[in-house]
């Protein structure tokens, strides 16, 4: 039998989710990676059907409409695979799967590879 690892076949999951400061979310992953996110970026990248066209993937949020004062009111995990935010602009329908959150990671390492 091959050596078992703790690697998940469907990608890493968060081992810790915390508020870093008033506008930054931090996620520590089971593969050791540490992510940080500016909450405004997260809101702009909301994947719900109101914010992104389901078929074309085109962004429906007009640039500049999300204010700098955007903040989550709270967040929760959905099942074992996503995070849902309740925003202070009344929006709350976006489910952010962990795979998406990893893509959006803006830590130094990831930002260098793919700037937002």
């Amino acid at each position, binding site marked *: 039998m091959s050596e*078992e690892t*703790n690697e*998940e*076949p*469907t990608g890493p*999951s*968060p*081992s*810790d*989710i*915390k*508020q870093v400061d*008033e506008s930054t979310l931090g996620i520590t992953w*089971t593969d050791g990676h540490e992510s940080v996110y500016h909450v405004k970026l997260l809101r702009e990248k909301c994947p719900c059907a109101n914010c992104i066209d389901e078929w074309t993937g085109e962004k429906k949020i007009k640039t500049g409409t999300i204010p700098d004062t955007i*903040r*989550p*009111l*709270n*967040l*929760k*995990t*959905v*099942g*074992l*695979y996503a995070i849902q935010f309740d925003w202070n602009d009344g929006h709350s329908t976006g489910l952010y799967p*962990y795979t998406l959150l990893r893509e959006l990671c803006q830590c130094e390492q990831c930002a260098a590879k793919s700037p937002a």
Partner: protein
Amino acid sequence: MSDQDLQVKVMGALKTVMDPDLHKNIVDLGFVKNLNIDNGKVKFDVELTTPACPVKEQLKNECHTKVGEIDGVAEVDVNMTAAVRASEHSQPILTGVKNIIAVASGKGGVGKSTVSVNLAVALSLTGAKVGLMDGDIYGPSIPKMLGIPITPPKSAGSNKFYPHEKHGLKVVSAAFLTEEGQPLMLRGPMLGGIIQQFLQNVEWGELDYLVIDLPPGTGDVQLTLTQRAPLSGGVIVTTPQQISLIDAEKGVKMFQQVKVPVLGVVENMSYFVCDGCDKKHYIFQSGAGKQLSEQFKVPILGEIPLIPDVVVGGDSGMPIVLGQPDSLASQAYRQLAGQVAAQISIHQSKEAKKVGAGFELAWKG
């Protein structure tokens, strides 16, 4: 040799007994309990993670032999017990239920409900406390398969109700919500509400395992359950033919997408044994189970033969595992129960520390 010296030697011997699934010795796993040595008579419990452990007898014999060989041991009394470990979650529902197993198939007609029923009964026959949720809201067949007459559930006060009980199982089904023969004709969004009720408003009590029979496909009910229920693992049922693979694959990918651990694959109606010639006939060809297992690197949990008595069991309300415990199908189901329980234990032991379902964080400032 003093009893104290013996204790050291006994523990040393038990440290060489390995759990073949968890890859650690039973002492380090914390299984050895209540060790008592009195004048060379050695007595102890081995507390496994499930009463359905498929290697229970093997471990018992190994302990007995190894301890028996120690110089100074006059008698060995090994008692196998079990304490089912719970799959952790922080959701405020199903708090008394330790493990939830979803049984899925990509398509209908593979015998999923029959598998769910017999799996649940086989688990309960090992001594575990088991519940069964019939997730097929449109075509709830589980009450009939268990011989439970259609009566409304008993109220438990404050909007809650008790499950029906039969053959050692606690059972919940949409069939009990309507009069016999009346179809439940609902639009999609209503289904989620019924499932929510099954999750939140049923007094399940303390259960070691809750088996959820998902309806075929990947729709509303599956979404609600995989999103909202703290599932410990999923089982995919397929039949042997190639064409089943396409749909069974979707079932596996569904679990993967919502990160529910795939415990393994069950190949149902694997073969038919003729009672005239004892030969195995592969009526539905063969191979899908094995292919699925290799493709997704998940174990085959069981291969259930197609025996007319399985159907008779379902139709008469006496599941074959109870009605004909010596049949080939019953043996296969008992093995299936053991493998499912073992896989749950394995997944639990590998669980890296991760944020589970039901985690909430209020934002400050």
